[in-house]
């Protein structure tokens, strides 16, 4: 056994993050580490890489007990890590990044030529032939990830931890990175793969370990594993709605509420028409870069449209700025929650009342009692898991942060809410809850525009699905037409098919 973890425990004030966890990694396997948020995946990895000191338990590498105190020490022992956010420096060259701290020297000075050829040799192993003297930042994220892997392997060479390495890659890039990972597996490395994408887990890994609430639940061969059973392990309960993709009920014709005609902006999105009925969910499907987010930004006035107009029953509405869009009763929960959605240093209460307060104007503060009532109300209604309303939102899990963002908009009672990737980076349980919330909102008469990369999710929530390709609305599917196959076909139509 390459890496063997026994009875690993780690507690934080108030929680037992890891409780006697066992984990084994063979040389030459890709081993998925799965679990919902809060299952203990990241704690386990941090104990392994020396970022946390463990309370109990042993970690053996090649049969030798180890106790790394820092990531650098873990690296030297043979455990390298590649995180979701690329953990190299974009302002240094590829060669500098690869050989940082181990630069070949001559007479005490860095030997540029030796460095270049060494860096090239390192990358050639991964089938990458690029100019190593260019800044790392000038390459795509996929290449940056491969460089990060190359560096981690060169430094460590025994165990490679991939912590959500594919979260910001598109399908083709994911394949590129996976090819590299498979090559390393065949070279005899032990690879731990953490991901939210179950497809990728089935595609890439040899075995799967599931953690839940800090405990080891099961370890199985991936090939023998059934998808539904895996999700049951992760959730710890039999599944009901979480992954059942029932076709939407066709709720008859509804009075059209919002008409967008000829909306477009040069270089961003071709002019399109869109009608959203009251209590209707319109889904936007398409590949990364197909114009989904751009559509949302146009509708919410983040970028002004060059052409077209928006109307409701009463006449023309002004959506030339987010402020105007909000005044018109629109809401927008953006894709990048961390930078665009939440104010991490403010409390849950402050994040919830933010929009409402902005609309009232800062000269008329919402009374504190009213704020508390609102916050408590939404924490209960949306089942936001927190120790209280005064907790910093940055300390919540992704799913709970997303619920707070939703609460902020719900407090303003918009008639039209745009949700851009509402379930990205959220664990399976919270995922199902967000979908349930969407259904509730629609029942209450709100209109929704939902953008998602997960086709199953769109199928589950949408009354109509609009498919985008190359910054153009190319198809509109309604009712019984909506299925994974029809959407895929519309996306694929002429372009390459998404793997």
């Amino acid at each position, binding site marked *: 056994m390459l890496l063997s973890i026994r009875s690993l425990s780690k507690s934080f004030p108030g929680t037992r993050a890891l409780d006697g966890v066992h984990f084994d990694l063979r040389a030459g396997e890709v081993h998925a580490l799965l679990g919902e948020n809060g299952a203990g995946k990241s704690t386990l990895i941090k104990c392994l890489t020396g970022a946390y000191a463990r309370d109990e338990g042993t970690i053996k590498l090649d049969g030798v007990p180890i106790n790394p105190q820092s990531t650098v020490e873990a690296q030297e022992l043979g455990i390298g890590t590649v995180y979701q956010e690329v953990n190299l*420096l974009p302002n240094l060259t590829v060669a500098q990044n690869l050989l940082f*701290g181990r630069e070949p020297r001559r007479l005490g*000075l860095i030997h540029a030529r030796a460095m270049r050829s060494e860096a090239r040799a390192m990358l050639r192993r991964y089938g990458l032939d690029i100019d190593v003297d260019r800044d790392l930042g000038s390459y*795509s994220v996929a290449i940056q990830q491969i460089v990060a892997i190359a560096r981690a392997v060169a430094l460590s060479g025994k165990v490679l931890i991939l912590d959500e390495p594919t979260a910001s890659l598109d399908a083709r890039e994911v394949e590129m990175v996976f090819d590299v990972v498979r090559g390393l597996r065949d070279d005899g490395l032990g690879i731990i793969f953490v991901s939210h994408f179950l497809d990728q887990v089935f595609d890439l890994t040899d075995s799967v370990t599931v953690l839940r609430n800090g405990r080891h639940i099961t370890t199985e061969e991936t090939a023998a594993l059934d998808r539904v059973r895996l999700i049951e392990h992760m959730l710890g309960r039999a599944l009901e709605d979480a992954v059942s993709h029932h076709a939407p009920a066709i709720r008859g014709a509804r009075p059209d509420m919002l008409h967008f005609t000829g909306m477009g902006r040069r270089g961003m999105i071709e002019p399109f028409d869109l009608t959203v009925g009251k209590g209707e969910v319109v889904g936007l499907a398409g590949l990364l870069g197909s114009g989904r987010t751009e559509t949302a930004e146009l509708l919410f006035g983040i970028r002004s449209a060059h052409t077209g107009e928006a109307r409701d029953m009463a006449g023309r509405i002004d959506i030339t700025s987010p402020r105007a869009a909000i005044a018109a009763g629109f809401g927008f929960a953006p894709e990048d929650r961390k930078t665009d959605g939440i104010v991490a240093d403010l409390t849950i209460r402050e994040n919830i009342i933010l929009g409402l307060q902005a609309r009232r104007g800062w000269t008329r503060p919402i009374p504190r009692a009213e704020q508390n009532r609102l916050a408590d109300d939404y924490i209960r209604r949306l089942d936001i898991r927190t120790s209280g309303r005064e907790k910093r939102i940055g300390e919540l899990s992704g799913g709970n942060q997303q619920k707070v963002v939703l609460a902020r908009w719900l407090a303003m009672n918009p008639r039209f809410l745009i949700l851009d990737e509402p379930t990205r980076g959220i664990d399976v349980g919270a995922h199902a809850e967000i979908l349930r919330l969407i259904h509730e909102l629609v029942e209450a008469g709100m209109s929704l525009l939902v953008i998602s990369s997960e086709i199953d999710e769109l199928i589950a929530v949408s009354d109509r699905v609009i498919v985008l390709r190359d910054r153009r609305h190319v198809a509109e599917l309604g009712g019984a037409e909506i299925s994974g196959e029809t959407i895929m076909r519309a996306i694929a139509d002429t372009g390459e098919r998404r793997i």
Partner: protein
Amino acid sequence: MNTRALPLYVTIAIFVLAWVICAIQFPAMFSTRVIGNLLTDNAYLGIVAVGMTLVILSGGIDLSVGSVIAFSGVFIAVMLRDMGLHPLVVFAMLLMISTAFGAGMGFLIDRLAMPAFIVTLAGMFLARGAAYLLSIESVPIQHPFFQTLQGAYWLMPGRGRLTLIGVLMLLVFVLGMIVAHKTRFGTSVYALGGGEATARLMGVRQGRTTVLVYAFSGAMAGLSGIVFAIYTGSGYSLATVGTELTAIAAVVIGGTLLTGGAGYMFGTLIGVLTMGLIQTYIVFDGTLSSWWTKIVIGILLLSFILLQKLLLKLSQARLAGGHA
């Protein structure tokens, strides 16, 4: 080509263009005399700008250097007048003080996780105050060794004088280039400027690097003070007010990103010489007020900041394009 190197090329192009314009209008500006004077007059600024480049590359700033130069001049003058020590001994003492001063600021910046702006601002007042403490009046330096240093030059073809301090500045730039581009320490400095958290993950010893960066800047400020004392032949506590800002301007005009992580030592040399050239032009013209120097530097600085912003946008657009 790296887009990041573009500001450097632009700087060089502007410098060459400026010189051509000058030379067309005043052919005498192409002489070795003017070149010699350009190096001599800007020696102290160039040396301090080498230290500033490293500090800015690391993502920091050092506002204390102007005051340290003034302190150095007064220190040298007072020591020579009152103690009767040999100038070389005084120089060594001074360099130790200024290096330790810089290292101390670096230590505080790292340990207290304080913004470099505030710590070096305090350093600026401290050093200026220390200079006043030594003497509030201008102290002339009359030491035979000093006169030797002031008079040392090599005659270039065309009767231009390549002075000792001019050569010293060029040597310091060579040293700066080696430190920044050819050592692991230099790579660590770029790494810190690129992102502290990532740099730490990659194994940069942040504390050590920060202390060394400011110590280096302090040493350069001390050396610059020595050069300034040789240049002016006196020590005056009111001298070189605002030189830290001129040095920052030279670094930015030289194509270094003010937020750190990108830039070239050679660019700073061109930045210093460009600023010197503008001054020379105004002297040659004779009718222009010397304030025009400041206005032109202001315009140059602004256009470089805009250029960097533009390049950033372009490289982001290219990345996004490659993604679609």
